[in-house]
């Protein structure tokens, strides 16, 4: 017998009963705790994985800078989440934003709570890993030219002013939750949100100086594949852990996370083969990410065959968006918009189509609930506009203090040397020790 009641409940509180997330103490299930511990570790690993996915795609002289844009979020965003972010996102507050009741983890203890049968503190950490990676995702649009100090400031403010409220809207009992929009693991909160910021940041920074004039090629495709492989692995925690219990819905979300990217990979390979005569490795890595993004909002709401369909369908818009983008003047350098934006939008809309009470807790278009697609679309549009708009404001403000873009000459030199005073790959030849007497 499937524990349908519990599953339903878990599903429900996930997207529509968020006010219970807060303080009420409760029992702890060791099994759910074990799964949430693992899931949190898996999601944390996604940020180093992203560093490799992105880092392999840039030129060698910018590899460290690109990786550091992810790694710095592990510290900075982690600390900010503890200080303010968690409370702003999951504090009771109002329908737009949480409050400061849990700032600096006030009242966040080891008791179980409305979020599930495991320590409240662990829920905070699990959500913190989402906060971290969402910030890091944006970096794909600004690599090879954004000044590192400006980037650091940007993700700090963006996290608190954009991510926290949006997470509150969707998962923290805010107005999107009230609409019954479906976002299992962050199609809107994570992917569309980051992609909107990416679009605005790429437009404001302008294209890299060599963009469109020279070939800017990946310096290490194996790193891209390593990143994609580890991202997939970590994403099992991202989606599977978003069931917030080791139950059937976790199993469903997990399996869908395995199947959808598989379907995307196959379709992408076919498109690649038909159009270029080759199945590319970079394309395969990209396909995996697109499939993962697309299934994210749907993972616990749709059946496995729907997951395969979602993965397959999501291939097309992202594939052609990348193809167009690479030949356009829009230097979203590592295609955050095409992969996470378009992938996230496709996934969110298809969640509204394929959601099924035979599997999860909600109905979509195919079960006659056409409205759901509209709700999904609305939530995406609002998140996109909010994130894009605030990104514009934040970046302009920072630009008053620190120029967000490095100088042309520095760009030619490479970001690693200019921003970090080091190189990714050195031999030590021609390097002379400097003695400092301080």
């Amino acid at each position: 017998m499937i524990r349908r009641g519990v599953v339903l409940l878990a599903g429900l509180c996930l997207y529509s009963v968020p006010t219970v997330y807060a303080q009420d103490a409760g029992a702890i299930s060791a099994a759910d705790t074990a799964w949430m511990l693992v899931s949190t570790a898996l999601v944390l690993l996604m940020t180093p994985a992203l560093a490799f996915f992105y880092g392999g795609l840039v030129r060698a002289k910018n590899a460290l800078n690109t990786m550091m844009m992810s790694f710095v979020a592990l510290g900075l965003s982690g600390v900010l989440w503890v200080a303010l972010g968690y409370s702003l996102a999951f504090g009771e507050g109002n329908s737009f934003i949480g409050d400061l009741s849990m700032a600096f983890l006030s009242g966040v203890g080891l008791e179980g709570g409305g979020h599930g049968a495991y320590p409240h503190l662990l829920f905070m950490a699990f959500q913190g890993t989402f906060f971290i990676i969402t910030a890091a995702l944006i970096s794909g649009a600004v690599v090879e030219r954004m000044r590192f100090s400006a980037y650091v400031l940007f993700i700090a403010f963006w996290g608190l002013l954009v991510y926290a409220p949006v997470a509150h809207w969707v998962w923290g009992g805010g107005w999107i939750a009230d609409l019954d929009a479906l976002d299992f693991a962050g199609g809107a909160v994570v992917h569309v949100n980051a992609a909107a910021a990416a679009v605005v940041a790429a437009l404001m920074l302008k294209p890299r100086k060599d963009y469109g004039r020279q070939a800017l090629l990946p310096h290490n495709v194996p790193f891209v594949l390593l990143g994609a492989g580890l991202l997939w692995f970590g994403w099992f925690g991202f989606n599977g852990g978003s069931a917030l219990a080791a139950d059937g819905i976790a199993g469903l979300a997990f399996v869908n996370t395995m199947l959808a990217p598989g379907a995307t990979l196959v379709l992408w390979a076919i498109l690649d083969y038909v159009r270029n005569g080759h199945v590319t490795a970079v394309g395969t890595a990209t396909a995996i990410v697109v499939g993962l993004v697309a299934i994210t909002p749907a993972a616990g709401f749709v059946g496995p065959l729907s997951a395969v369909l979602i993965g397959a369908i999501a291939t097309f818009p992202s594939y052609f968006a990348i193809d167009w983008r690479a030949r356009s003047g829009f230097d979203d350098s590592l295609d955050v918009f095409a992969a996470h934006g378009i992938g996230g939008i496709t996934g969110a809309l298809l969640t509204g189509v394929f959601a099924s009470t035979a599997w999860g807790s909600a109905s979509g278009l195919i079960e006659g609930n056409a409205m759901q697609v509209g709700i999904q679309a609305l939530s995406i549009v609002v998140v996109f506009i909010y994130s894009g708009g605030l990104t514009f404001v934040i970046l302009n403000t920072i630009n008053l203090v620190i120029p967000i873009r490095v100088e042309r000459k520095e760009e030619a030199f490479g970001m690693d040397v200019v921003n970090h005073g080091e190189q990714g790959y050195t031999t030590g030849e021609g390097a002379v020790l400097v003695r400092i007497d301080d």
Partner: protein
Amino acid sequence: MKLIKAIIRREQLNSVLKALFAIDVKGITVVDVRGHGGETERIETYRGTRVKMELADKVMLEIGLSEPFVGAAVKAIIEAARTGEVGDGKIFVLPIDKVYRIRTGEEDRAAVTPVES
């Protein structure tokens, strides 16, 4: 026959190649090198170890040409490689005694005339 050795910035390589192709210089060999010249030094730090990098990444072109083409090639390189900042590089022209094309065994001028491919 002459050998042109041109040491240029890596980021200028593509424009130099284009400029050479434009004047029909099509046999070119490229070597990744590092150079020391008048450029400002770079300090890097690795876990407390501070180092001055005396060498900057450059690229060296080696081109075998018969005399009449040398002037045009040098001119093309200088124009395409110049940024005006210290570090643009040097061109050396060396005498060649003999040239062979391996595929055919042809010698000298014939050896460096590109085939129609």
